[in-house]
């Protein structure tokens, strides 16, 4: 171990961090046990007074080699494991995985299942964004209150998930070629009620935060991300769109039945934390629009493709990369099949992990307190970052 607390790997080039420590920079290890690192995430920060001069993220505290597990279980057996990637958005994780396997094996999905998937994915987006706003404010020192309001609304959506799939967070709901259980009229009535009541909450929440001087001072012009860097660094999701790049897979790929819905893509202008925060509030309004359309149009019919076998599912030899617009960004699954019962290669493209690529660029020159805000606005979940 070197004097600065970093381990030298044999053969590895000298690390940028301890190669150029000069003067009186102080190294601080932020995390992994820190409430605002959203899990077990560590940043090695070199500080000049209170200003960040270098920042290296350290991952792996939650690493369980998800991909290896996926290569050792059956295709179906990986489905419940995907819930545990980004444990806030198990429905979209399920969808991304199901979509990739459907691409790999050429499976059609019935109409009603597609609608159910859209409804659940948009509900997931709502509850992910709403809890992110709560957490972000919590990181900024608004302890408790906004997070409590956010979790109150999230709770209602989780109850919907529970009554449909049986579990609040580990839904394990989607299957290759459809969904597991059908939703009855009661469920739709309850969901509609929650969707109808949601704008009132959003109005109130925006009133709470949008014009708040403290929030503006903490977030505007903090952590600016230029569009060029965002594109080159593979940033996706709300973070990319906050920098003004119009790239939403729901429009670009039009996977599932998204081309049928009318919705707009909110775009940011400055790419700072405030934009990232407000963009999510705007996205929730668009999600509500999609939800209202889907609830109105959902047809009756089967929810599973009858051709898909439950036991001993074996896709043909080949490879496929499927991706969806998850609440945190582009969530992709890359699968290689050798014709066996489990994938030869099972790879997750985790949006929160890749979005952290630019964390150092965003934080340089800001104070330690801003690091927490910037990290919060990136929206990470360690279950997905470390896999």
């Amino acid at each position, binding site marked *: 171990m070197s004097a600065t607390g970093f381990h030298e790997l044999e053969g590895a080039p000298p690390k940028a961090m301890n190669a150029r420590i000069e003067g009186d920079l102080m190294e601080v290890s932020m995390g992994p046990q820190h409430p605002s690192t959203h899990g077990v995430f560590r940043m090695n920060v070199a500080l000049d007074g209170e200003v960040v001069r270098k920042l290296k993220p350290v991952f792996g505290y939650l690493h369980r080699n998800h991909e290896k597990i996926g290569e050792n279980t059956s295709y179906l057996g990986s489905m419940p494991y995907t819930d545990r990637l980004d444990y806030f958005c198990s429905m979209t994780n399920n969808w991304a995985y199901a979509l990739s396997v459907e691409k790999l094996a050429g499976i059609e999905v019935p109409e009603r299942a597609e609608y159910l998937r859209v409804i659940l994915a948009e509900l997931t987006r709502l509850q992910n964004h709403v809890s992110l706003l709560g957490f972000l404010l919590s990181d900024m020192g608004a302890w408790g209150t906004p997070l409590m309001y956010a979790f109150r609304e999230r709770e209602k959506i989780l109850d919907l998930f529970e009554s449909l799939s049986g579990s609040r967070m580990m839904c394990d709901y989607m299957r290759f070629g459809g969904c597991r259980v059908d939703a009855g009229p009661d469920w739709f009535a309850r969901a509609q009620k929650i969707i109808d009541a949601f704008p009132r909450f959003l109005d109130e929440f925006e009133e709470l935060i949008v014009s708040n001087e403290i929030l503006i001072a903490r977030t505007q012009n903090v952590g600016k991300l230029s569009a060029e860097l965002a594109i080159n660094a593979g*940033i996706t999701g709300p973070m990319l769109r906050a920098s003004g790049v119009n790239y939403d897979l729901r429009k670009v790929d039009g996977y599932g039945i998204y081309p049928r819905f009318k919705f707009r893509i909110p775009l940011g202008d400055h790419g700072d934390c405030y934009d990232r925060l407000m963009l999510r509030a705007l996205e929730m309004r668009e999600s509500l629009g999609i939800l209202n359309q889907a609830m109105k149009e959902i047809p009756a019919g089967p929810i599973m493709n009858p051709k898909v076998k439950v036991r001993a599912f074996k896709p043909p030899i080949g490879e496929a990369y499927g991706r969806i617009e998850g609440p945190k960004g582009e969530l992709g699954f890359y699968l290689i099949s050798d014709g066996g019962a489990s994938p030869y290669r099972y790879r997750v493209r985790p949006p929160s992990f890749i979005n952290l690529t630019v964390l150092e660029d965003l934080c340089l020159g800001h104070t330690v307190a801003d690091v927490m805000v910037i990290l919060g606005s990136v929206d990470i979940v360690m279950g997905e970052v470390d896999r």
Partner: protein
Amino acid sequence: MQSLDEIKARAEAAVPGAKIEIVPNPGPANQPSLLLDHEHAGAVALFLRDDPALKLDHCSNVTGVDWLDRKVSKKVKVKKVVDGAEKEVEESQEEFFPGYLEAVYHLFSMTLKHGPVVIRMRTADRAQGAQLPSLTPVWRSAEFQEREIFDLYGIKFDGHPDLRRILMWDEFEDFPMRKDYREPDDYEYEPTPHDEVLEKAKQHYTPRPQLDGAENLTAAQQ
């Protein structure tokens, strides 16, 4: 978007000397890929990123794949002289495919909204020759993902600005995503090991009577 054959032809014209091969994909997804040679991979990647008709500026997914040494035995009919008479005899021949590690990049265009174009690179072998040129200078998004490949597969990326382990700890020695990886005996660390884990852990550590079997004590108290 142009077809993969066109892209290949144009890339080969733009980068003199580049050898590009098309790797077919038989599955229903139909995502064939371009196999780049090490020497010109960076130049071809730059061409793919900057060409106005392609503009593949979004390198979405970078990952490694491990292909083990394979032996495929085939039944071949061979003419042989058996007992003075020429006969056709079936003989099994073994064909040997050496293993290699592979890095796969999925490229999309954010500007022109098309994709995917899949490119891949293969290492010479799975041991000393596990080296590839890094494409991080072309796409920054490959930075962490190439580090992850280095960590889990052991491919060294030449030209990567900060190549160290990312998910495993720095002292870790093996590459866990390789197909022939065997986990160490004390892999499942438990503060109070039991059953098989206890047996395995005993081989590695000196026995700790005050801890080993602690679960049985609590069970007896109940």
